[in-house]
C-alpha cells in the first residue's frame, strides 16, 4: 500500500512567556493510503496540534511532513491551501458550516473554490447520501446538530479527498445522533476509499479504526494496530 501521509521526527515548540513549550516531540509515523486510524490522548497531549501539522494547517518547528508525496514545510500559505483543497477533507467538532450559505451551498464550497463547473448535481447527490436531500435549501441555523454534522460530512467528501481529517466529529452530539453520524462517516469513507485520520477522546470510536496512536506529553506512547475496520 502507498503511503499517503508521512511524518518524520516532527517537533512543535511554542514560545510561552520566557520559556519554550514543546507540544510535540520527535513524532514519526506513516499512514498507508485507504487506511483508517485514530489519534487519542488526554487533553493537552498535543493531539490537535498533531492533526494541524498533518493537514498542513500549521508548520512544524523541525522535522518533515509529506502529504501525498508533497513536502509541506517548504510551501507558502496559498500553496498549502491549494494542497488542502485538492487532497484533504475536514470534519470538525463544531461542524464549521458557513452560516450565510444553505446546506447545498456549503457542500459546494470546496469545489467552487477550485473553480469547477456543474457541481450542483454532485453536491445534491452527496446530500442525498447523508439523507438531507430534502433540506438542501435550509441554512445551518435551521438544522439540528446532527444534521449540521451530516452536511459537513457531505462537504468533506465533495472534493473527493485522498485523506479525511476528523477532529472529535461526535464531540457536540448526543449518543444516538453520534451513532448515526459515525455510521455514515465510515460508510462514506469505505465507499470512497478515502484515508481517515480521527482525533478523539472516545475510545469506542477509536476502536472502529484499524490503528490507534496514543499521544502523551507530546510523544507517541503507543501505536496499536486494531485489525480490520469494523463499522458495522
Amino acid at each position: 500500500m502507498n503511503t499517503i501521509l508521512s511524518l518524520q521526527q516532527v517537533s512543535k515548540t511554542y514560545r510561552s512567556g520566557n520559556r519554550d513549550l514543546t507540544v510535540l516531540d520527535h513524532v514519526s509515523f506513516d499512514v498507508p493510503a485507504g487506511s483508517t486510524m485514530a489519534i487519542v490522548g488526554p487533553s493537552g497531549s498535543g493531539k490537535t496540534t498533531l492533526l494541524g501539522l498533518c493537514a498542513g494547517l500549521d508548520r512544524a518547528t523541525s522535522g518533515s511532513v509529506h502529504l501525498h508525496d508533497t513536502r509541506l514545510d517548504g510551501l507558502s500559505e496559498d500553496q498549502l491551501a491549494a494542497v488542502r483543497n485538492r487532497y484533504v477533507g475536514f470534519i470538525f467538532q463544531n461542524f464549521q458550516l458557513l452560516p450565510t450559505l444553505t446546506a447545498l451551498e456549503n457542500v459546494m464550497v470546496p469545489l467552487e473554490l477550485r473553480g469547477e463547473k456543474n457541481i450542483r448535481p454532485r453536491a445534491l447527490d452527496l446530500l442525498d447520501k447523508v439523507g438531507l436531500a430534502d433540506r438542501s435549501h435550509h441554512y445551518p441555523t435551521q438544522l439540528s446538530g446532527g444534521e449540521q454534522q451530516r452536511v459537513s460530512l457531505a462537504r468533506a467528501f465533495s472534493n473527493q479527498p485522498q485523506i479525511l481529517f476528523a477532529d472529535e466529529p461526535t464531540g457536540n452530539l448526543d449518543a444516538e445522533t453520534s451513532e448515526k453520524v459515525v455510521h455514515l462517516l465510515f460508510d462514506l469513507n469505505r465507499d470512497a476509499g478515502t484515508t481517515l485520520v480521527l482525533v478523539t477522546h472516545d475510545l469506542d470510536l477509536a476502536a472502529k479504526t484499524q490503528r490507534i496512536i496514543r499521544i502523551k506529553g507530546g510523544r507517541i506512547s503507543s501505536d496499536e494496530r486494531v485489525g480490520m475496520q469494523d463499522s458495522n
Partner: protein
Amino acid sequence: MAWRDSRRNRARLLLFISSVVLGIAALVAIYSLGDNLRQNIDNQAAELLGADLEISGSRPAGTRMQKLIDSLGTQRSEERSFASMIYFPKNGGSRLAQVRALKGEFPYYGELETQPATAAQAFRDQRQALVDQTLMLQYGAQVGDSIRLGEITFAIAGVLLKAPGQTGISTTVAPSVYIPLRYLEQTGLAQKGSRINYRYYFQLAPKTDAGGLVKLIKPRLDVEGLRYETIESQKEDTGRSFRDLTRFLALVGFIALLLGCIGVASAIHIYVREKLNSIAVLRCLGVKASQAFLIYLIQITGIGIIGSVIGAVLGTVIQQFLPLVIEDFLPIEVTTDISWSAIGQGLVLGVLISILFALLPLLSIRKISPLNVLRASYEPTGRATDPVAWVVYALIVLFIFGFTLLQMKDWREAAVFTGSVLGAFFVLIGMAMLLMWLVRRFFPASWSYLWRQGLANLYRPNNQTAILMVAIGLGTAFICTLYFVQGILLSRVTLSSSGNQPNIVLFDIQSAQRDEVVALARQQGLPVNQTVPIVNMRLEEVNGNTALEAQKDTTIEVPRWLFGREYRVTFRDSLTASEKVTEGAWQGVAPATGLAPVSLEQGFARRSNIEIGDTLSFNVQGTLIPTVVSSFREVDWNRLQTNFVVVFPTGVLEQAPQFHVLLTHVPSQEVSARFQQAVVRQFPNISIIDLGLILKVLDDLFEKIGFVIRFMAGFSILTGLVVLVASVLISKYQRIQESVLLRTLGASRRQIFVITALEYFFLGALAAATGILLALAGSWALARYNFETEFQPQFLPVLIIFVLVSLITVIIGLVNSRGILSRPPLEVLRQDV
C-alpha cells in the same frame, strides 16, 4: 463588579459608544451656535436695522404721509431702491444691480463698511457711488473708475463690503450700488411706472418707545399700504428665522444621534450574546438576575457618560467652525463663546439616550439562565415576548417626542416630526430590505462563487446590514437630493434657453421707446419673440368688499394677501401658446360698456376663492377699473416668457401708465454682451435679465446652500461609517471563523480578500442605491408637485456619489478587516479564537 467585568471590553464598549459621539457633537455644536446667535442678535439688532424705525412701501408717500414722516424722530434718512442696469465704461461690462439712492445719515447704528473707510461718508456729498465688492471683482473695477447709471456717470468712491442687514447671499442675488438721492432725478431712472421701493429710516429720541409709537401710527400705515420695522420687531424676525435654522439643524443632528443609537443598541445586543457565558457563570455563583442586569447597565451608563463628554468637547470644537459654514446667510457677526448650557444639554441627552437604547438588548440579561453554563445552545427567551421591552419601546418614542417638543414648543409639530422620523426609518429600512431581497432573489446564480459569497456575507447572523444601509443611505439621500433639486432648477432655466426660445428679457421699456428698442434688436439681427405691455395695479375690491371689510367680516372668504400685493397685468386680444382656458370663456376685446372681462390663472383663483362671475375692482394709479372674472387659464410657467396671473382684454388699459417687456434670443455670449451694451448706452433706463446671469446666480446660491447640506449629510454618513467600523469589529469573531474555515477548505488569500472586499462593496453599493432611490423619489415628487416641471435627473454626479460611497465603505471595511484576513488556518481547530 461592573468595572471589573468591563476590563477586557472597555475599548470595545468605547467603540460602540463612539457612534453616539458624533450625534452629541453635532447637537452641542448646533446648540452653542444657537445660543451665540441669540445673544449676537440681541446685541446687534440695532446695527441690523441701522435705525430705530423703518417705514417702507412701493409708492411715494402722499402729502398726509409725508407730514407724518416729517414729524417722526430726531433724524431721518430716505432711500429709494430699484433694479437697474449699471454700466462699466472702462470695459463695457453691464449688469443688473440693486440701486439704493440714499439721503441722510443712515445707518444710525453700525456702518456702511467700505474700502476705503472714508468712502462711506464721502460719497454722500458728491456724484459718487459705493459699489458692491462682487460687482467690482466681476468687472475688474477700481476705486476712482466710473460707472454709468441711467443718463449720468458716478465716480466709484469705494467698495461696499457690508451694509446693515445684508448677507453674503443677498449680495450674490442682487449686488448693491449706493448713490446720493439727489442725483436720482438726473439719472432719468425714476420715471412713472418704474418699480421703486421707498424706505424711510428714523432715529428716535433716546428712551422713545418705538413699539408704542408704531402701535399709534399703524392704522395710518396700513391704509397707505406701508410696512414698518423696529429694532424689536427686527430682533424677533431675525431671531425667528435663525431659531428655525438652528432647530432644523438640531433635528438633523438628532437624527444622526438616533442612527448612532440604533447602531449602539445592535452592537450591545451582540455584546450581550457574547457575554452569555460569563453572565450564566455569575448566575450560577448566586448573582440575582436583577444584579446581573445592573452590572451591565452600570457599564453602559459609564460608557455613555464618557461618550457624551467626548461628544461635548468635539461639539465645542466644531462650533468654532460652524459660523464659517453659514456666514453667508447671517446678517450679523457671530461669536463662538463656549455655551455651558449647550454642553449640559448634550451631556444629559447623550447619557439618557445611550441608556434608553441600550436597555432593549440589556433586558435579555434578566432572562439568562444559569443553565447556559451547562448547555451553550440554551437560548434565552425572545425579547418580543418580554412586556418590559414594550415599555422601553414606548419610552424611546416618548423620548423622541419629548426632545422634539423641546425644540419645537408645539406638541402637534412634535407629534408630526416624531411620526415622520419613525415613518422615515421604516421607509428607509423597508427600502433597504426590499433592495437586499431583490438583489438576493435575482442575483445570477452563474456568477462566480466569490461574488455570491460576498453577497451572502451581508446576511450573516446578527448582521447590522439594515442599520448600516439606513445610516449611509440617509447621508447619500441628502447629498443626492441637493444635486437633483439643483438640477431641476437649473434645467428649468437652461431648457428654456434651448433652440430659439428667448434667453434675454428687456424690461422697464417706456411706451415711447418701444418701437426704437424693437428696431435696435432687429438691426443687430435678433428676433423679437414677444413684446408685452405691463400695467401695475392694486386690487381694491372683491365683489364690492374692500380689504378692511374683508378683515372685519369673517364670512367673506377672501384672503388678506390678495389686497396687499401689486399686480403686474397685461392686456391682449388672444391667448398665448403657453395658456389654455380651463373654465369660462375667453374674451379678448372689452365691450364698449359695462365691466371689463378679465382672465385669471386657475391656481391663483383657487387659492383666493374667486369664482367665474365675481367682480374685481383694480386701482391703476388712483383710477378704479371695475372688472368681472370671465375665464380661468392654465399657464405653463416653465417657459421663459411673460406669463400673467391677471390678463385684461384690449380696449381698457391702452392709456394707462405702462412699461413694456421685450423677449429676444441671442445666439452667443459675445452677441449678448454687444446687444446689452448698445441697449444700456441708448436706453439707460431699460433693465436686462440675461439667462446666463440667472444661471450664474443659481450656481452661486447652490454652492452656498449646498455647503450647509453637505455639512449635515456629512454627520449622517460619518455616523454610518463609525457604526460600520464598530460592526466590523464586533463581527470580527465570526469573520475570523469564516475566513479561517475558508482557508482550511483551500481558499487562497486573494480569494478571501476578494470576498471581503465584495461584501463591503455590496454594503456600500446597496446603501448608496437606497439613498439614491429615496432621493430620486423625493426629488421626483418635488419636481412634479412643487416646481411643476419634468424631472430629468443628472446621472453623472449621482454615479460619482455612488462610486465614492461604495469605495469609502470598501476601504473602511478592508482597513478594519486587516487582522482577519491574515489569520492562520490552524485556529479553525481551536475553540477560543
